[in-house]
């Protein structure tokens, strides 16, 4: 448990058991969200899905009724369960319930509405410099072509999803971004990402941003790289601070910061 969480837990422990604050004291704290994610995976994901997408239990990520509930109401639901349903009571320490709630709240909130702890300017420098992100990802026209455009990513992803995408890029690969090498019958070699692919044609975007529209009959060999082109080693090659800084930078990438969240439609496929 990190220090701030420990301090808050102590404070909570000193207060009366039932005298809870209506608002989650850990709301929006990255370390609490991360801890909550672990607890959620252990105790909740079996019914609600690993990312709250629902299963035997309701979808929590997109639930309007959950969004309307106060933190205190959600706390009581977890603590007491919902009698007459499969939702059991959880005898967890209060601090852990708040961590779970921090995670649940973050599930449906786009990253630009979640406070980020890192330094966005340092994140920008890392993104375009040593981190190498800008060689594949574009933001407002600056950057590379092979990865998804990130200009509006903070409206399309939650902070948890952004963190997962950096640390585990292969967990949810996007269609249209798989690395491919095509050898044409005249010997030409085309490398890039397959925007689309069938038995009859393949559409390849190369690193220079040039599209190659290829009939499969012209190709002598088509080799897919398999998995994401992105390194799955950023947990080791970047420092924890660096990751927080990049997340803070990405959390600012939104083209309509004043848009009404209720009108957002989520579309993960980007092809």
């Amino acid at each position, binding site marked *: 448990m990190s220090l701030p969480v420990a301090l808050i837990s102590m404070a909570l422990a000193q207060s009366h058991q039932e005298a809870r604050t209506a608002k989650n004291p850990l709301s929006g704290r990255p370390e609490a969200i991360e801890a909550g994610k672990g607890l959620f995976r252990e105790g909740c994901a079996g019914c609600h899905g690993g990312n709250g997408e629902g299963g035997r239990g309701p979808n929590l990520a997109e639930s309007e009724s959950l969004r309307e509930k106060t933190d205190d109401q959600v706390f009581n639901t977890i603590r007491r369960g919902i009698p007459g349903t499969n939702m059991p009571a959880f005898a967890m320490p209060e601090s852990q319930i708040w961590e779970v709630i921090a995670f649940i709240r973050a599930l449906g909130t786009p990253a630009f509405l979640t406070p980020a702890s890192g330094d966005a300017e340092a994140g920008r420098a890392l993104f375009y410099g040593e981190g190498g992100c800008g*060689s594949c990802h574009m933001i407002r026209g600056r950057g590379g*072509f092979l990865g998804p455009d990130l200009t509006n990513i903070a409206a399309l992803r939650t902070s948890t999803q952004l963190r997962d995408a950096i640390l585990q890029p292969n967990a949810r690969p996007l269609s249209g971004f798989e690395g491919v090498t095509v050898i044409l019958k005249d010997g030409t070699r085309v490398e890039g990402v397959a925007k689309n692919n069938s038995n009859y044609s393949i559409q390849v975007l190369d690193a220079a941003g040039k*599209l190659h529209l290829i009939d499969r009959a012209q190709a002598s060999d088509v080799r897919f*790289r398999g998995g994401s082109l992105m390194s799955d080693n950023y947990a080791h090659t970047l420092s924890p601070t660096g990751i927080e800084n990049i997340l803070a930078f990405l959390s600012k990438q939104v083209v309509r910061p004043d848009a009404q969240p209720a009108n957002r439609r989520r579309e993960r496929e980007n092809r």
Partner: protein
Amino acid sequence: MRFGGWFLLFAVCLNAQVRYSDILKSPSENWLSYHGDYRALRYSPLTQINRQTVANLVPKWTYHVRAARRLEASPIVFDGVMYVTDANEVDAVDARTGRQIWMYRDESAQLQNVNRGVAILGDSVFLATADAYLVALQRSSGAILWHKKFADTSKGYFATLAPLALKDRIIVGVSGGDSGMRGFIAAFSASDGAELWRFYTVPAKGEPGSETWGEFDTQWGGGATWMTGAFDPALNVLYWCTGNPWPDYYGGGRRGANLYTDSVVALDAGTGKLKWYFQFTPHDTHDWDAESIPVLADLTYKGKRRKLLLHPNRNGFFYVFDRETGEFLNATPFVDKLDWAKGIDTQGRPIEVPDMDPTPGGRKVCPSTRGASNWMSPSFDPETKLLYVPTLEQCDRYVGSQHNPEPMKNLMGGGGEGIPNEPGKFYLRALDPLTGEKRWEYPMTGPATMWAGTVSTAGGLVFFGDDDGHLVALDARTGQDLWRYNLGQVLTASPVTFSIARKQYVSIAAGTDVFTFGLFEPAAPISLAKGGRN
């Protein structure tokens, strides 16, 4: 970095850019603007599909736009890639195969509506979202380059049009004239979206023209600019048509001609300054937007070569102007069902029949509120010297209120409704562009619900969508029916034609899908490539 080391850091070279000089040459292999060309002739020099070969025209592919209900775009084609739009969405498609390359959807857009397509310039395509943001997208990847609000939805605006790219700038107009707003046309820098100029089609209080509004609050006067205009590169003048005054069907609160509604305005493309204007329907009470396309043809008129502007108007008259000077040359009816005016005088003013305003009980007036023609694209063939105009013969019963409605409540102060047992009927009419005289016509079957336009070609053909869901090819000289294909949809867009690797195609966005046709080639057996993950 461990990406395999096989790609470059940062892009340094891109595909061939779309230059202004390319758009000047369009349409040829490419189709680079809504009308295909700046002058809105919508005439292609391609000849592979022609009067002889069109009998062998067959479907090549269909592209389904996933969430579409009513596509209205003219697809843009450059370098083998087609860009088609739906509301707040651009789909880039391999134009030989119909396979999607990328799709951009503005998830946060606050409105839904129809959309009529992108503009293309440099390495960007430009989309106007329904809630009036102009978005520049990287052409090969769909990445957002910039995203800029150009009109405020809380003041009644929305957008449906295809922007127009010229030189270094993107021109847009606005929708909203049926519930009150103040129309404008504006130019933005293509590189960063900075506003260059803005021309309001309804003057503010005290400005020239405001005396034509009585006491009306002109911030709700209408004059929308919802169709892409035409452009004369030699004169550097934009010709943009404007919509109805608001409230559409009640004129009692806006006494006067209501400038510059139901007009064509000629604007200096560099500054946005008004060079001349002409109002087709002064003090309109029938929702006769002037949004039919202004066609810029150069022809010999009464012995003198002149730069003309041709315009079949919703009010039932076909107009001819000198576009250099703005001089009105003539106007003639191009529909039989026309009773609101006896004719047009020598100054271009309608000789109005009294008592034709809508009434609370309803009054029959011709043409209908949809007009004798509307935004369905006409085309002009310089070989046949004919203008092909989708034309509707219909009257309506016009009902009007007796007071001003509240702005932004979707109230028009009345409406036009169909008359029982008098259904409308569509025709494709070939008009003499100098006199408006009808040379031939093609009567359509159908429920009079279509919005499809035309494209004509140097192959001697005119393609158009009919009122019964067919894409049809006629002999451009005679109107002889040469080819047809049932698309199975209500047609709400105009066809385009283009060529890739010396193969000509014809495409139309129809309902929920884009259909593309080319000449028949026998299928050859192929062996599936090795190593493919499918």
